[in-house]
C-alpha cells in the first residue's frame, strides 16, 4: 500500500490540466517534457526528410554514378562534397537519399511487421487468456510450436515460394514473431480477467467480445505497444539478415537491411555505408522510444499508478 492511497489524494496533478479529456491530458503532460519535445522534433525532422527530401532533391536513389563512388560524408575524410552530404556508396549512389528512402521502406517493414505481430499475437493471447481452459491449451500449444520454429526456416519456406517482395517479408517476419506477444497478452489478460470490473461488465450484459475489445484491449495494449518499439528495430535488422542469405528485399530498392548487408564488405575503407543506416536506425528508434517512454510515464501519472 503506498502512502498516497491512505490519503484522499485530492489533487495529484496540477489543476491546470484538469477538465480536458484524458487522452488530451496525457498528451499535454507529455508535451510539457523537454525529452518528449526533443524526441518529437527529431522524429518529425526524420519523417519530413524521409517524405520530402528524396523527391525535393531530385536525386534518384537507384541512380548510380560509378565515377563518384565511395565519397566520404562531409568533413570526415578527404574527398567529401556538398553534393553528397553523407557520401556515396560502392556504386556511387547518394547515401543521404538512399538512407532516407531506406528509412521509408525499413519503417514500412518494421511497423507493418510489428503491427501484424501485435494483431495476431494479441488477439490470440487475449482469446486464450480470456476463455482459458481448452481454448487456452490449444492456442498456447500452437504458440509454443510456432515459437520453436526458427524464423529462418519459415523464411526460406515462404520466401522461397514467392519472390522475396516486401509484403512477403512482412508476412514472414510477422508470422514468426507473434508468439511472444501472444504469451505476454495472455498472461496479462489472465490476471485482468479475474478483476471485478470484468465481472461487472458481464453483469451489465456486455458480450465477451465487447469486453475484450472495449474494456481489456485499451487497458493492456499501450504497455505492450510501448515495448514493441524495440521490435520495430529488431525487425528492421532481421530484414537485413534475410538479405544476408539472399532472401531480402531485392535491389535496387534500398532498405536499411540491404544497405547494411551490402556495405558490410566496405566497412574497412568506407565505413559510412554500413554505418549510416545504423545511425539513422538508432536515432529514429531512440526518438520514438523517448516519446514512448515519456508518454508511458505521462499515462501512468494521469492514471495515477503503475501499469
Amino acid at each position, binding site marked *: 500500500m503506498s502512502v498516497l492511497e491512505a490519503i484522499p489524494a485530492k489533487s495529484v496533478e496540477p*489543476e491546470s490540466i484538469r477538465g480536458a479529456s484524458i487522452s488530451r491530458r496525457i498528451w499535454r503532460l507529455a508535451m510539457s517534457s523537454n525529452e518528449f519535445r526533443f524526441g518529437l522534433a527529431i522524429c518529425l525532422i526524420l519523417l519530413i526528410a524521409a517524405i520530402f527530401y528524396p523527391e525535393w532533391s531530385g536525386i534518384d536513389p537507384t541512380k548510380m554514378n560509378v565515377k563518384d563512388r565511395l565519397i566520404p560524408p562531409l568533413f570526415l575524410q578527404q574527398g567529401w562534397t556538398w553534393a553528397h552530404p553523407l557520401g556515396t556508396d560502392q556504386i556511387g549512389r547518394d547515401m543521404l537519399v538512399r538512407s532516407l528512402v531506406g528509412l521509408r521502406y525499413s519503417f514500412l517493414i518494421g511497423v507493418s511487421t510489428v503491427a501484424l505481430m501485435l494483431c495476431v499475437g494479441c488477439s490470440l493471447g487475449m482469446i486464450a487468456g480470456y476463455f482459458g481452459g481448452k481454448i487456452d491449451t490449444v492456442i498456447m500449444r500452437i504458440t509454443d510450436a510456432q515459437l520453436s520454429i526458427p524464423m529462418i526456416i519459415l523464411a526460406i519456406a515462404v520466401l522461397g515460394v514467392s519472390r522475396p517482395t516486401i509484403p512477403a517479408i512482412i508476412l514472414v517476419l510477422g508470422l514468426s514473431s507473434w508468439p511472444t506477444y501472444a504469451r505476454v497478452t495472455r498472461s496479462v489478460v489472465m490476471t485482468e480477467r479475474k478483476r471485478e470490473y470484468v465481472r461487472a461488465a458481464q453483469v451489465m450484459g456486455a458480450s465477451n467480445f465487447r469486453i475484450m475489445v472495449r474494456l481489456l484491449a485499451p487497458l493492456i495494449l499501450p504497455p505492450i505497444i510501448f515495448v514493441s518499439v524495440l521490435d520495430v528495430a529488431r525487425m528492421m535488422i532481421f530484414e537485413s539478415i534475410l538479405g544476408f542469405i539472399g532472401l531480402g528485399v531485392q535491389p535496387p530498392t534500398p532498405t536499411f537491411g540491404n544497405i547494411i548487408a551490402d556495405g558490410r564488405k566496405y566497412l574497412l575503407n568506407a565505413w559510412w555505408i554500413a554505418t549510416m543506416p545504423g545511425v539513422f536506425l538508432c536515432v529514429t528508434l531512440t526518438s520514438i522510444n523517448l516519446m514512448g517512454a515519456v508518454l508511458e510515464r505521462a499515462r501512468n501519472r494521469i492514471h495515477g499508478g503503475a501499469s
Partner: protein
Amino acid sequence: MTQTSPVLSVRDLSIDLRTGSGKRRVLSDISFDLAPREIVGLIGASGSGKTILSKALVNWIEPPLEIAAGRVEYKSNNILTVASGPMRKLRREIAYVGGDPMGALDPTLPVGYQIVEKLQAVAPEIGTAEARKRVVDLLDAVRIPSAKNRFHEYPSQFSGGMMQRALIVDALVSNPAFLVADNITQPLDVTVAAQVLRLLRELTERFDTAVFFVSSSLPVVSDVASRILVLEEGRIVEQQETTALVQHPKHPYTSELMAQIPKLWAEGAANVPASTGKEVVISVRDVSRSYSVRKRGTFASHNTVRAVRNVTFDVFAGENFGVVGESGCGKSSMMRLLSRLELPDSGQVLCNGDDISRLSGKDLLKFRRNFQLVLQDPFSSLPPRTAIGAILEEPLRTHGVPDRKELRQRALTVMDEVGLPSSLYEELPIGLSAGQRQRINVARAMVLQPKVLIMDETLSSLDQTEQFKLLKLFEKLQAQYGLTYVFISHDLAMVRRVCNRVAVMYLGEIVEIAHNQRLFFDPGHPYTRTLMSAVPTLEERRYHQADYLLEGEPPSPIDLPVGCSFAGRCPNVMDRCLTQSPVLTDRGSKDMAACFLLDEPINRDMRVVA
C-alpha cells in the same frame, strides 16, 4: 497517568505531504506517551492520518511525506533522525504489523525462513538453529497448527488470518519494546479478527510489549486498548481512558463517531420497515455448485470444491435480504449464481418465475437490465483507465443506447442521484476515495434502472462514516425506485441495521435463515451465536467469546467432514453431530435453522421453502 518513564514519547510531531504545487500538512502537533506494557489505541476516519502517524513511530516516513517538526523519542533518542544502519539495530526493539498481511512477505520464500531472516537481520548474534527454534515455538504459541511444517510453507499457502498471526510472530520474535499494530484486523473475518485480537493481548502481556493499536473501528480499539487517542484531520482531538471515552466522549467528533457505530441489540438498531412484499422476485431452489481444482503436483487428478450445497430461499419484492458468513462460506459463489455469472450444477434460480439459466439473447439482456450487482472491491471493480463518464455510459451502450447526448445526460443524472459532482465526468476514478468509488459502482448499476440490486460486500471496505452515508443513499434509492436489495456481507452489524431477513451460510450451506429480530435475539444455530460473540461492539454482548469463540478456522470445502460441518468448532458438539448432518428445521414464521439442539423437527424430511 502512568508513573514509569514512557517507552516512547511523541512531541509536537508535524508531517507534510509534498504535492506538485506545494506542501500540505497531514499531521500537526501530535504529542503523546506510550508507557511500558501499555496498549494505546488510535481511532480516526480514513484520511485522518492514522497510517502516517503509525509509520512515523517506526521511522518510515518517505517522500512525498516529510517531517516538518517534532520528535519521536525512544530511549531518549529521536528515532526520526537515526541513520539507517543504527536504525536497523533499533528495529529489534521497534516492531510493526500492518493491515496487508498477504503482501507483507516475499511470496517466493517460505514464511518461517523469512521470519528467521528478519530475526537474524536485527539480532545477528542469534544462530540459525536457535532462531529456527524460536520461530517454531512462537508459531506454535500463536496457535498455527503443525507449526513445524508450516514453517516451510509459502505465504500463498497461508490464509489471511494465519498470515496475520505469522506476522505478529515476525514482529514479536525479536522481543521488541513496543509494537505498532496498524489496522491489523481490517481484512479479516470477524471470528478470525477476534481470535487475532485475543492473541495479541495474550502475547503482549507475555512479552511485556507496549502496543500502539490503530484502527478505524472504535469497538475494536476499545476491546484492546486501555487508552484511546482520537485523530481528526491530522490532529489529536481527544485522549482518554477507554471506559471514560466510551461513556463520556468530550469532543463532538468523538461523539459523532460513536453515533455512527451500528448497534446490534440496542434500541433502534434495526432500521427496517417490516417486509411487506408478497411477490417473489428471486427464488433459489436446491441449488448446488462445485468447482473442480487440479490437485497440485498430480498429473490429472482433481479436487472437487463444493462451494454451494443445496441452498434454497426466496427473496420478496421490495425487501432487503441478507446473506452472511465468513470467507469461504460460499456467499460469493452464491452471488455469482444469482447474477448468472455462473450456472448451478443442479437446482434452479428463478427470477420472476423464469429459470435464469435458460435465458439467452434479448431475454438475457432484459434480465441483466433488471438485475444488477454492486461489487466488493472499490478499486478493482472499476476499469482503472476509463473516465467516470465513460464507465457509466458503457452499460447503456451495451444495452443499445447510441445517442451521445442521451448517454451523457443519463450518466450525469445518475451521478447526481448517487451524490457525485458532475465535474467528475471526465475524471479517472484513480484519485477518488473508496466511498466515492463505491458511489460510482452504485451509479453504474443504477444507470440501467434495475429492479434488484445485489450488494456483494459493497460496504465492507469503507470506514464507518462512509458506510453510514452510503446506507442512507441506499435507503433513498429504495424509496425512490422500489428496489429490492440482496446484501451479501460478513458484517453482522450492517445486516442488523438494514435487512428484513437474513440467511447465515457456513461451508456452502444455509445453516439458519430468520427475520432480523429473531436472528439477533433468538438465534437457532450455534454458528450464528459464534458470529455474534465475535462482532466488535461497544454494547453489552449477549453472547460471549469465552463461551462461543473456539480456535480454528472453517475446514476446507475440499474435504468436508462427515456429519455437521460446524461440529469441529461447535461449543455444543454432540456425538450425533459427528455422524449425522442436520437439516433446516422450521422454527415458525418461516424462520429455520439446521441444528440437532433444536426441538425435534416438525417436518423432518420435508425441505421447506422459506
